[in-house]
């Protein structure tokens, strides 16, 4: 239950958005080179941090654009919003 400041539309209720989970998990460049452990790491393993976590969000009931959010999962406070492709902020 919190507000998210969409970089394209402004501040809206969280229920307009959907979380895309942990951000900055790069898609393997050479999938055929990966062994099973690496695939498991890419597909399933998550940091699931209690504290500041970088994640992707989609404004699904609005502009439908993706962006990144740095959010403290222990109190749902958003520290920073930044666009796709940008590096995570130092917090």
């Amino acid at each position, binding site marked *: 239950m919190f507000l998210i400041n969409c970089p394209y539309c402004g501040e809206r209720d969280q229920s307009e958005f959907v979380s895309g989970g942990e951000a900055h998990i790069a898609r393997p460049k050479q999938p055929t080179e990966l062994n*099973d452990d690496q695939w498991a790491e890419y597909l399933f393993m998550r940091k699931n941090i209690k504290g500041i976590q970088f994640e992707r969000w989609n404004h699904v009931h609005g502009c439908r654009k993706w962006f990144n959010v740095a959010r403290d*999962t222990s109190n749902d406070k958003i520290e920073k919003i930044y666009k796709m492709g940008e590096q995570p902020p130092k917090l």
Partner: protein
Amino acid sequence: MKNKYSIFSLIKNAFSNHENWQRAWRDPEPKKEYDAVIVGGGGHGLATAYYLAKKHNLRNIAVVEKGWIGGGNTGRNTTIIRSNYLWDASAGLYDHALKIWEGLSQELNYNVMFSQRGVMNLAHNLQDVRDLKRRTHANRLNGIDAVWLETDEVKKFCPIINTSQDIRYPVLGGTLQKRAGTARHDAVAWGYARGADEMGVDIIQNCEVKGIKRSGDTVEGLETTKGFIKTKKIGVVAAGHSSVIANMAGLKLPLESKPLQALVSEPVKPIIDTVVMSNAVHAYVSQSDKGELVIGAGTDSYVSYTQKGSFNIVEETLKAILELYPIFSRMKMLRQWGGIVDICPDASPIISKTSIKGLYFNCGWGTGGFKATPGSGDLFAHTIANDEPHKLNAAFNINRFVSGDLVDEHGAAAVAH
């Protein structure tokens, strides 16, 4: 030796105004060293300690709990117990638990109020009908009781359901597991705690684990808010906080922790004598012995450790409840709360050794682990004591995420509670 609870002890204590009851478990300080330490004093952790002591004769063990026992998801869930899961591995796991539930009050000499009032799962579209029928057949092949009910039989079984075909998601039928039902959540934690304590297990509350000490790939002990505890075996059963503890040991788990909510109404006279669940509209309801309707909602879509949950999730659930049960339209809701559930990608638990020697995890129960409490404790105790899984939890090892041998119960098992 503890006094046995019975009708006679109840009468005897009534004469002294119930002021002379013995305490149900001690409140010890941690020893310097234990043979094994269980992290997390929920139902699963306490049951693990109980079976370690009882079946594997490990008596120099402790349960450390950061708050009070049963204060996590054990005391926050809607207490639905059933075993009608689709896949063989899950059927084996959950029915093992259900069989223990059937004799648990007697075994623990503690009334866990296990009530086999039946659980009915509703179908609202053709795909639901096909899925639920398939599950009924799978259940029966696994020796688990299950029947398919047509719409009129659903209505007969639970007359307050709106089976009109004019509603947005009409009831097209349902499944019924008669041996399923509910139990009293706190009593499960307290009963296992009392039983474990009696066998010498130290239950240490207000003791938070802050770090895991290891030398190379072997555990040496735990850093806690009550000092360092030396041990060679650590069993982590921390539900929503499993990843936090895994991170202390430098491990990653395939989990996401999300808020899941429930709410109860003001108490009313008996109106619904079973449990009804609906996956498609995400509403499920039963009635507690106090008379409150116990209603479960869905999870939030994002990771959070706030134990609250969003209002729109509750709103969705109540909309669905009102369409299915118009009779509840003027009920007042009394309380709402959230718990943090640890969700696995395949919606099945992990009861497993890890790459670190002496470190075991029991987690990933997500939205539906209460029903498994006794079985989970039994199998986790086996895994810790023998350093090998029991055949019933072999499929639920962490390596399934590497091998790809998932136990995909998403959607397969009706609603996920």
